[in-house]
Structures are given as structure tokens and as C-alpha cells.
């Protein structure tokens, strides 16, 4: 799940899809149908097919397992929301760590040729390694500190998309904008702050969104290490106990939260980058 390619693109398509009409999502019958009813129906069909093929389940069974997990919790009495809360906590930690490490590095690689020359090959040689492959080493490195080992996996997953997008964004800085700043006597720090950062912001935001998404996907892998809490852990443990209804419930929750967070990012992006989004339409 974590091995998916990490594209450095801004995916401009995603702006187009969500910008113009998003505000009126429920205001027109067409939007209501196309943006809510149809997607939900398709999702229901997919899960029904999966549940049926896997265990001969119906959605009713899954719904029951879901409610049971929500209210009574798993065999230890831990509810679905508690698992979800713990997962969100770990992913947020890993993501923030990736954000504060990958952004400055991406800016440095994008802006300074020497840094680019030295670090680009290093990055390219590390990037293809799937986060999941780091699990054995992360356990060895962090020994008893399970949370750190898990956060490390998520960090790896989120790091590269943020790094690559930031570099792409910085490279997109218009040289004439730098000349404008220089003509007013701006030093490097001012140029970074007032020209390079805003120029790179759209790509960086996209990088954060993709990075969080991949971090979230690495969750199951990270929680396979153990820890006794978290949605990924729940997927593994319920499957071992043969409670497929609960396994699917946990998966549904992973999908739902990922969806909500992705939308949250898009929402912030759209507000913060009015200049770029309106240009790109």
C-alpha cells in the first residue's frame, strides 16, 4: 500500500475538480446527485462485492460489526474512535516531522545548485525504497520505542512527496520576480521569504496533501509493528481473530478519515491560494 509512486506534480486537475462548484455542493440537484449520491452508491457496491466475495457477508453484517466496534469496542473494549484517534495522532506526528524536515531541504535543493548536485542523487537512491521495507530496520533502530518506530515509517512515507513537490515549486520561481526583489536591495533571506516561498506555495500545499495521504496509507504498515492501538493494528488483529466484519469496518474508517483530511487540505489550499487557483481555471 505504501509503494505507490509519489508524483511530484501539483495535480492541477484536482484544483479544477473542486474549485469552481464546490461551494454549491448540495445546492443544485445535479451536484447532489453527482457529488454525493452516486459516489456513495458506488462505494457501497464496491464494499458489498468485496465483503461478499471474501466471506459471503452482506453490508448489513458489516454495518453491525461497525456499530459494535463503535459502541462496545474490540475484544479489549477499545472503541473504533479510540483506535482512530491514536492513528491520527501518529500520522500527524510523522507528517509534521516530514513537513519540517522536507520543506527546508526541498527549498535548499530547489534553490542552490550545489545542494542539488550533492543531494539529488542521494534522494533518488533512497526514494524508491518502499516505507514498508524500513519496518525491520526501524524496529532495530528504535528498539523499545514503538511509537517512534511507527512515526518513522510514516515520516518516510510523507517525506518524499513533500520534498519533491517543494523542489518543483521552488524551481518554478520566475527569475524576473527575483530581479524585482533584488532591484529593491533584497537579500537572500528576503528573497526566500517573499518570493521563493509564495512562488512554491501551490506545489508545497499539494505536497503536504499528497504527503499526508501517503503517510496515512503507511499507517497500517506502521501499526503492524504492534502497539495494541490504531486502525492499522485493528485491521491486522481482527483478521487474525477471524472477525472480517470488523476488519472491513476499520478499513472503512481509514478510507473515511483519509477522505476527510484530503478535503480539508484542498479546502485550505483553495482559500490560501486564490491567486493561483483562479489563474489555473
Amino acid at each position, binding site marked *: 500500500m505504501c509503494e505507490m509512486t509519489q508524483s511530484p506534480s501539483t495535480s492541477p486537475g484536482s484544483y479544477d475538480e473542486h474549485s469552481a462548484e464546490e461551494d454549491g455542493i448540495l445546492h443544485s440537484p445535479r451536484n447532489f446527485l453527482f457529488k454525493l449520491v452516486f459516489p456513495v452508491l458506488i462505494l457501497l457496491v464496491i464494499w458489498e462485492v468485496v465483503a461478499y466475495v471474501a466471506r459471503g457477508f452482506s453490508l448489513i453484517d458489516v454495518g453491525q460489526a461497525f456499530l459494535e466496534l463503535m459502541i462496545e469496542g474490540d475484544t479489549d473494549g477499545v472503541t473504533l474512535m479510540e483506535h482512530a484517534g491514536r492513528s491520527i495522532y501518529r500520522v500527524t506526528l510523522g507528517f509534521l516531522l516530514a513537513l519540517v524536515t522536507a520543506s527546508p531541504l526541498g527549498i535548499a535543493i530547489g534553490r542552490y545548485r550545489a545542494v542539488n548536485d550533492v543531494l539529488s542523487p542521494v534522494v533518488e537512491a533512497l526514494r524508491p525504497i518502499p516505507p514498508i521495507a524500513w519496518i525491520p530496520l526501524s524496529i532495530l533502530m528504535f528498539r523499545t520505542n514503538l511509537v517512534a518506530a511507527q512515526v518513522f515509517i510514516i515520516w518516510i512515507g510523507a517525506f518524499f512527496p513533500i520534498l519533491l513537490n517543494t523542489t518543483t515549486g521552488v524551481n518554478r520561481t520566475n527569475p524576473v520576480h527575483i530581479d524585482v526583489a533584488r*532591484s529593491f*536591495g533584497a537579500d537572500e533571506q528576503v528573497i526566500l521569504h517573499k518570493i521563493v516561498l*509564495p512562488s512554491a506555495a501551490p506545489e508545497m500545499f499539494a505536497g503536504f496533501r499528497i504527503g499526508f495521504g501517503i503517510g496515512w496509507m503507511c499507517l497500517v504498515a506502521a501499526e503492524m509493528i504492534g502497539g495494541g492501538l490504531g486502525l492499522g493494528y485493528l485491521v491486522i488483529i481482527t483478521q487474525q481473530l477471524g472477525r472480517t466484519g470488523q476488519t472491513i469496518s476499520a478499513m472503512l474508517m481509514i478510507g473515511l478519515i483519509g477522505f476527510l483530511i484530503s478535503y480539508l487540505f484542498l479546502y485550505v489550499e483553495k482559500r490560501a491560494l486564490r491567486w493561483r487557483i483562479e*489563474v489555473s481555471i
Partner: protein
Amino acid sequence: MPKLSVRGLYKSYPNGNGGVTRVLDDISFDVHDAEFLSIVGPSGCGKTTLLKIIAGLMEPDSGEVYIDGTRAKMGHSKVGYIFQQESLFPWRTVRQNIEFGLEVKGVSPQERRRLSGEIISLIRMEGLEDNLPHEVSGGQARKTEMARSLITSPDLLVSDEGLSNLDAQTRNYLQEEFLRIWKETGSTILFVSHNVDEAVFMSDRILVMSNIPAKMIGEFAVDLPRPRERASTGCLEYRAKILEMLRIEQEKALARQGG
């Protein structure tokens, strides 16, 4: 003392095959206080290169630039620059664009607001302050760039084809605006153009540059009263003389290539 003195500028660029191409070849000239000086020359003769060196954005191979008698080195901020390409920051509103230079120079927000308000009414863009660059017309964008360069009261304003890429009507209108703002601010202007009509209409003096390696090959003091008529005999005479000089220069360049 001249506002700007350019002394013996040389500049070469590396060319594809490991050698260098000399672009500026011993360029010297002065611009006087409050003068409107235009430079015309063939495309690719090094006008932008010259302006960038004057503005401290590029190092010459040799030669010096003096502003008010003081040597102006790389990174100085005495020159307001209107670039050949569109150069407004797309993420900043008109007002924020205009205030940019003041921010860099650490002027307080209240003072920035006051100065930008003044200059916005000078360029007659009231009501558009909060628009983003893509929400104003090409001509308004040019005026915003002009205001952004002027707001820090630079010693010298350089404009690199500032009025190119506009339709004829907007161009004429902006020429008049440019002259009005020049008068009202008392600025010294170095104006690069490839449009001889425009140079004659606007300038106190016109310098003509040759093809690369570029030298100054002609100088015309435009001795015509203002406001000028574009199609007046006086303007047309200067125009004819300058075009003739450029034509001969073009022939020489072709002959050089042929030989």
C-alpha cells in the same frame, strides 16, 4: 553633475562553443537630472544587458556606473526598474505589489499605506487596489509596475520596453501617462524602446545603439516643445533621421555577416 554616468562598460556572454560573444563594447553616456533619455537599438543589441548592469543586477566585465557621482556596485537599490516581461507578483494584490519595495526597505505599515495610497491616485487606479494582477488589464498592470518602481523614490527610473506588447491605443495613452508621472514626480528616466516614434514623442534626448558588439552610434537632442504632436513635422523629421541611421547600421551588420 549627471544623475547617471556610465563609463566604459564591456560585457560578454559565453556562447555555445566554449568562447564568448561580446555584447557591450565600451558603452559610455550620461543621463542628466530630471532628463528623459531614450535608448533605441536593434533587437538583441544588449539594451536589457545594459539596464541590468546599471540597476546592479548584473556585473559588467569592466567599466563603472556612477549615480549622483557615487560608484554604484552590484546589489545597490538606487534604480527603479520596469522589466521587459510582466513582473507583478501574482500572489499579491495591486496594493501589495506596489508596497513591495517599501516592505523590503522596512517602512512601517502605516507609512506604506499612506505612500501607496498617494501613488495609486497618481496612477489613477483607485478602486483596483485589492485586485490581483490577473484581475487588471495589461495597461493597468504596466501602471502598477511603474508605481511599484516609483514608490521608493529611486534616483533613476529605467524602463525596458515598458510599453511594448500593448495595443496602439493603450500604448498612446500610457505614453501620456508616463510623461505626466515623469513631470509630477520630477524623476530621471532612462527609457529603452525599439519604437522610434515612441522615443521621439517622449524623450529629451535619444541614444542609438548598434548591433553587437554594441556601441553608441548616435545621439539626438529632441529639440521640440512639449506637449508634442505625434505626427508633427518636427517629430517626423527626427523619426526619419533615426530610422535612416538604424537602416544603415542594419546594412553594415548584414555586410559584416556576409563578409
